[in-house]
Every structure is written in structure tokens, then in C-alpha cells.
């Protein structure tokens, strides 16, 4: 167990202005990366009372969608190279988005290239769905994830 926070002094950014999104040219079930971003930008960081957007862990560019193939890629930037919360952030993203798309869509989550010391091993864990499922059944992790997802709704 580490004592104290992993990253005690994160850089906090102002929240980007929200633009009202219109349902213009998109079909009912079209998957809009900006809509996905709206959904995840306010997830609270596991360690600090700020959102993933404020800590620049996520930005609009984080989300890419290939509608034809049905693939979504989310790339996030942990605040520091040795962030041990990277897998928790990944869990939060998956849990938040789990019922958001048509069932055949596949979601891949990765850390931004070069942003983490154990990039390959973190990415492998983030995308092993059996590990993700088991982690979300772990009451301690579940509680942490719920705090990150629901505290922003206060």
C-alpha cells in the first residue's frame, strides 16, 4: 500500500466551455465521439477532486469512432508516468460507457503513446475483458469506481 497520493500535485486546467450539441444530421443510433466525450469528461479522478478533463487526462481528441467497423478507441493520458491509477481510470471509462452504444460496438482503451512507463502492460490489462469483469466484481475496486462516476453528479 502506498502512503499518500501517487501524484500529490497534479496540474489542473479550466473546464472547457460546453457547446450545446444538436441532433442535426446524425441518425438515431449514430455514435458521435463528442457525445461520448461529454459522457466521460466529468468522471472524477480516483485521487483528486477534479475531473479527468480538468486534469487533461481526457480531451475531445481522446475519442475516435469508426462507425463502419463499429470500433471506438479511447486514449487517455495519466497525469504521471508511473500512475498506478491508470487501470482504475480504464475501469471507470468502461463502466460509464457500458450501455451507451449498440451491442456490436467494440471499445478499446489505451494510454496515450509515451505517457506511461509500463504502457504495453497497462494497455494489455485495460483490454482483457475477463480481467475487467473480475475487477468490477471486486467490492473495493467497485466502490472506488462508483465514487469516480457518481461524485461528479453532486
Amino acid at each position: 500500500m502506498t502512503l499518500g497520493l501517487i501524484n500529490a500535485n497534479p496540474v489542473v486546467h479550466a473546464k472547457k466551455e460546453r457547446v450545446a450539441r444538436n441532433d442535426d444530421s446524425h441518425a438515431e443510433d449514430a455514435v458521435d465521439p463528442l457525445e461520448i466525450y461529454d459522457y466521460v469528461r466529468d468522471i472524477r479522478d480516483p485521487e483528486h477532486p477534479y475531473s479527468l478533463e480538468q486534469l487533461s487526462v481526457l480531451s475531445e481528441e481522446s475519442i475516435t469512432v469508426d462507425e463502419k467497423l463499429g470500433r471506438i478507441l479511447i486514449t487517455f493520458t495519466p497525469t504521471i508516468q508511473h500512475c498506478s491509477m491508470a487501470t482504475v481510470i480504464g475501469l471507470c471509462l468502461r463502466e460509464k460507457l457500458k450501455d451507451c452504444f449498440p451491442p456490436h460496438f467494440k471499445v478499446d482503451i489505451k494510454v496515450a503513446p509515451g505517457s506511461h512507463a509500463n504502457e504495453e502492460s497497462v494497455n494489455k490489462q485495460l483490454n482483457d475483458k475477463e480481467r475487467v469483469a473480475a475487477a468490477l466484481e471486486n467490492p473495493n475496486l467497485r466502490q472506488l469506481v462508483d465514487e469516480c462516476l457518481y461524485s461528479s453528479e453532486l
Partner: protein
Amino acid sequence: MNFADEIFELRELQRLEGHADRVWGLAWKPATGADGVPAVLASCSGDKTVRVWEQSPLTGSFQCKAVLEETHNRTVRSCAWSPSGKLLATASFDATTAIWEDIGGDFACISTLEGHENEVKSVSWNASGSLLATCGRDKSVWIWEVLPHNEFDCVSVLQGHTQDVKMVQWHPTMDILFSCSYDNTIKIWAEDGDNDDWHCVQTLNESNSGHTSTVWALSFNATGDKMVSCSDDLTIKIWGSDIMRMQSGDGNAPWKHLSTLSGYHDRTIFSVHWSRDGIIASGAADDAIRLFVESEDHLVDGPSYKLLLKKEKAHEMDVNAVQWSSMEVNRRLASASDDGTVKIWEFAASSAHKKLQL
């Protein structure tokens, strides 16, 4: 069986609904589905239950005969029938493996195997039903001896994998155990003499043309001289061994890489199963089921395999498990998916498209 002259199809016979969460695994009950005995299938799920489905002799459709619940308190990841069909083992993320007995239509949990430190991912019975193996995220493989009066004794805890062990599978005829892991390797375990001294006799890793990412499953052909494995590295690999040497107790019958099937899958392959008549089925994260057979073109340096058919959108979500029914008649395949359903398929020649014999 000649696969060259005909066009085949995988026809959906039935869609079994009932599970409230993703279905992770399934197992056909041995000695059912022929000679007047209705086919029986077990499926296990993230809803913490196991369902047993039985085919009605009258209508031919499968009905849910039993729901095994209130035993596991987390996902049930894998299920396996003992060779006699009398017992069903279920492995769970709750770190236990439960053993169930069918007592006049009702399934009762007669034993619980504890020991793993965390999620148990797979369970397998040996050919005679005298041994059981389990594996899990704690990186270990456990071997249990089946004793009279429903007693199970742990005979060995095998360490060696450096990561989460995804599946264990006994060789179809010999007491040799195979395991595959998140550490990208396949390990082979055998007993030294007869004194419960189990150890790793071979590791199939990148240096022997092995997988470069998590190995999710493996399966043997009917004769047990070939094995197929599938991986997150998007390939399926075929391995072979000298069965005569294995049976002579040589102790040194190493497995060698024979073939790699790449370019057929673009998402993780979760399951492979080799049918008794040589068809390899794969279930993948692109919602498809693919069938492969050995190609008739015999190459100088070993067998080659070809794609026989691809069933796109077999399910609405990832296919987690595929298993051929062990009965020769009506080649049936069962599949399990994240969409919460189990599907029963029939593999047959597409009569409407039979090629003309010239």
C-alpha cells in the same frame, strides 16, 4: 471426410435465452445426444448461475431443465462434465470450484474446492475422471484427485506461469495437463512416476513459434497427436507431437509448432474446439464463428489449414466459447456469447449449392 467438393453452412437451430448476463462457457454432457438419450448442455454466466439445457425428444428444441444458483457469489467462468456425465464442475471468480451431482433431475452441490487465492478461470477432468485440474488469476494450476464418497483431495499446486492462467485442459487419452496463460505461453505438466510429483515438462513460448499475447484456449484432435491454440495475438496455432513416443512413456515427446493461421481474425480469439472429424471451430471478439480444416494440399514441411467457412454476426456480441457436440451424428456446435445467449448450430452440406460432379 472430404471437404473439397461441397459447400457447407452453419445453420442456426436454436437460440437459448435465460441468462441475465454474458455467457462465458458451455459444455456438452458426454454420452447424450444419441441412442435415444436426449442431448444435454450446461452453460455458465456472469449472472452467477449455471443453466442445464435438455433437448426434447419430441420437438427437438432445447429447454432449460435446471438453474444452478445460490452457490457461487460471483461470475461462473467455466463448467465441465465428468467423463461419465455424473458430475458437473463449475469454476468461479469467487475463488471456488463447485462439484454438482444430478440427483433425479435436481442438481445438488456436493462439494466445494477451495484453495485458489482469487478468480478460478477453468476446470477440466482427465479422460478417466480420476483427476480434476483448475487454474486462475493467482498464476497457479491445481490438480485434485477424485476420491470415493465425493471427496476431492488436492495433490499438487503447480507454479510456473508468471501471469493469470486462462485455461487448463487434460490430454484426451493420457494424464498430461496443458495450461495456457496471460503470460503468452502454453505449459505442459506431467507426473514423474506415480507419486504425485507433477512438474512442467515443456513450455511453448515465443521462442518455439508460440503466441505473442495472451493464450485464451486450446483443444486437441481426436487422436491426441495435435493441439490447436488461440490467442489475443489474433492467430490460431497448430501443434503436434509424436503420439507413439508419448504413449511409450518415453517422457520426452515434445510438442512442436506445425502451423500458424493468421490474417483470419482481427479481434481476440477466445475459444477453439477441434471436432472428432477434424473441423476446428473458433469463437472471437468480432462476433463471428469460423471453421477450419486441414488442407488437402500437402506441403513438404507439414500440414496446412484452410478456412472452411466464416459465420459473421453469429452473435450480437463477442463469442466466448464454442464446442462441438461429441456425438458423431448431426454435427452440432454450441456457442456462448456476451449477448447472454447460447446458440445451437448444425454444420451440414448446403444441399442447394452442391457442386456438380464433373
